[in-house]
C-alpha cells in the first residue's frame, strides 16, 4: 500500500496536548502521515497552506472553535473528510455539524481503536470518491 500510494494525510486539532501526544504515534504506526495542533489558529494557518485527506478536530476549544474551523476546512477542500471529537454534552451540536458535511463524530472518552476504525472508514470513502471521479 505504501509503495503504490502516498500516505493518507491527517490533521489533528485538540487543545488537550495528551490527545495529540497519544494519537500521533498511534496513527503514524498505523501508516498515516499525521500533523497535530493544540492551537486552533495555528491549525487554521496550516490548512491554508495545504489540503489534508482527513481532519480530526475537537469542538469545544479556546479561540477559534471547532465548528468555525471545520467550516473553513470544508470550504477550502470539500473532499476532506472531517471527524469531530466531542464531549457528551455537545452531542446536539455534533448533530448540527452533520449538516456541514462532517463524516462522523466520536464522543469522549474514546479508545484508540475507535478512532482508528473511523479513520479507516473515512479513508475508504475517500477512495470510493476518488474512483468515481
Amino acid at each position: 500500500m505504501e509503495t503504490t500510494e502516498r500516505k493518507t494525510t491527517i490533521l489533528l486539532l485538540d487543545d488537550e496536548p495528551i490527545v495529540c501526544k497519544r494519537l500521533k504515534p498511534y496513527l503514524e504506526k498505523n501508516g498515516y502521515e499525521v500533523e497535530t495542533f493544540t492551537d486552533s489558529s495555528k491549525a487554521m494557518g496550516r490548512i491554508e497552506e495545504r489540503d489534508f485527506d482527513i481532519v480530526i478536530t475537537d469542538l469545544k476549544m479556546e479561540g477559534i472553535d471547532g465548528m468555525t474551523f471545520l467550516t473553513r476546512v470544508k470550504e477550502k477542500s470539500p473532499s476532506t473528510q472531517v471527524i469531530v471529537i466531542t464531549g457528551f454534552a455537545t452531542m446536539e451540536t455534533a448533530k448540527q455539524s452533520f449538516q456541514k458535511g462532517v463524516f462522523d463524530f466520536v464522543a469522549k472518552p474514546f479508545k484508540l481503536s475507535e478512532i482508528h476504525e473511523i479513520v479507516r472508514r473515512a479513508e475508504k470513502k475517500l477512495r470510493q470518491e476518488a474512483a468515481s471521479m
Partner: protein
Amino acid sequence: MQNFCAGSSVTGDGMARTIRAKILAITVVSLLFTCMVSLIYVWQIMNLSRMLFNAQRFEDLLNDILEVRRYEKNFLLYGDPKNLTESLVYLKDTRITIKTLAKDIDRVMGKGTYVKFANLLEKYSFIVDNSLKNKSITSEDAEKLRTYGKKLVDIANSLVSRKRKLIRKTFGHTAAVPFVFLGVFVIVATLMVQLVFQRLLKPLKVIEDTIERVGRGDFSPIPGEWSEEDEISRLIRAFNSMAHELQVNQEALIQSRKIAAIGTFTAGIAHELNNPLNNICLCADTLIEEYADELSPEVRELVFDIIQQAERAADIVKNLLDFSRTDRLVLSCLDLREVIQKTYRLVKNQIMLAGIRFEMDIPDDLPKVLGHFRSLQQIFLNLFLNAIQAIESHGSITVRAVEDSNEFIRVDVIDTGKGIKPEDLKHIFTPFYTTKGVGRGTGLGLSVTYSLVKKHGGHIEVESEIGRGSKFSVYLRRCKPELCENGERSVNSGSG
C-alpha cells in the same frame, strides 16, 4: 380543593347556622321584644288613668253614702221626715252609681260584693221609704237602719282604700317596666358580644396568626374542628385547603429549584472532568496497544483496572450531564409499546439472570405519547434497573399503561421488590441520594428520570410499601397532532 362548596345549596336549616342568620335572628327578636314592652307600657299608662278616674267615682260613692247617713242621723235625732226625702235623692244617685260601677266593684272586692251592696241598699231604701210613709220609725227599724248604714259605709270605705292600693301597685309595675327592659337589653347585648367574640373575633385572630405563620413558611393547617356551616368555618376550611395546595406547590418548587441548582453545578464539574478522564483512558489504552508484549500479566491487569475505573467515572459524568442538560427536547409522537419493548431489550439479560418475570400490559389502541425517544428510554431504563435491584430473589416487574385523562397517559412501573421506607420517599428524586452501597449506586438514576419527565411536560409519582414493592407512575402527555414537530421521529429513533 377539597369538597368546599362556597355558598352552594343553602337550605332553610342551613341558613340558621350562619353567623349572619344568627345576628338577624337576635335583632328581629329584640325588635319584637321592644315593641311588646312599649305596648305593655302604653297599655299600663292607659290602665292607670282609667283606674284614677274610677277611684274618683268610688270616692263620690263614699261621699254619697256618708251624706245619706248624715240625713239618717238627723232624722233619727230630730225626727224631721224632710231629711228622709233628701236621703232618698242620694240613695237613688248611689243606686245608679253602683250599677255603672258593678263590674269594677266585683273586681276590686271580689265576686258577689255588688249584689250584697245592692241588697243592702235596697233594704236600707225600703226602711227609709216606709218611714217616710209612716212619718215615723220603729226603734227596731231604726236599729236596722243604723246597722245597714254602717255596713254600707264600711264597704264603700274599703272599696276606696282597696282601689288606692291597686293604683299604687299598678304604679309600681309601670315603674318596673324600664328595668325589665334594661335587663333584657343587657342579656341580648351580652349574647351578641359573646357571639361576635366566640364565632368571629376569636377565629379571626387564629386566622391572622396562621397567615403570619404561613408567611414564615409554616403551612400546617389551622387546628381544630371546623365542620360547621357558618361563614368562619367555611373560610377556615377554604384557607386550610389553600395552605395545603401552597405547601404542595412549595415543595415541588423547592425540589425543582434544588435540582436546577445542582444541575448547573454538576454540569460544570462534569464538563471539566470529561477531558482528564478521556486522557486517562487514552494513556492506559496506549499502554495496552503499544506495549502489550512488554507488560507482565500483573501490570496488564492493573492497566485494565485503570481503564475500567476511568470508564466507570465517565459513565457517572455521562449521567450527570444527562441530568443537567437544559436544552429543550424535541418531542414527537411515539408509540409507547415500541419504547418499552426497546428498553426492555437492553435489560432483558439482567432480568432473566435475576429470575424476574416481566409483564407488559399496554393496550393496542393506546394513543401515542409526546416524547423524545432516547430520553424516554432513559427514563424507563432507570426505573427498570431500580426495580431489578430492588427485587432480591424472584419477583415480577409489570409495566402498565392507561389513559389517565384527556391530557395524560400514565405508565406504571410496578415491582414486587423490597419497597421504600416512608422517610426515604421524599429524598429519592434528589441527586446523589442512594441507599445502595458505595460503588453500587450513584443516586442519579431517579433524579435524571425526574428531570427528563419534567422536560416532557409530565410528572412522576411514587407509591411504595415496605416488603411489598413499589409503583412508579410516569405521566406523559398524550400526543396531539398540533403539538408534534414532524420529521424529528426518524432522527430520534436513529440515534436511540
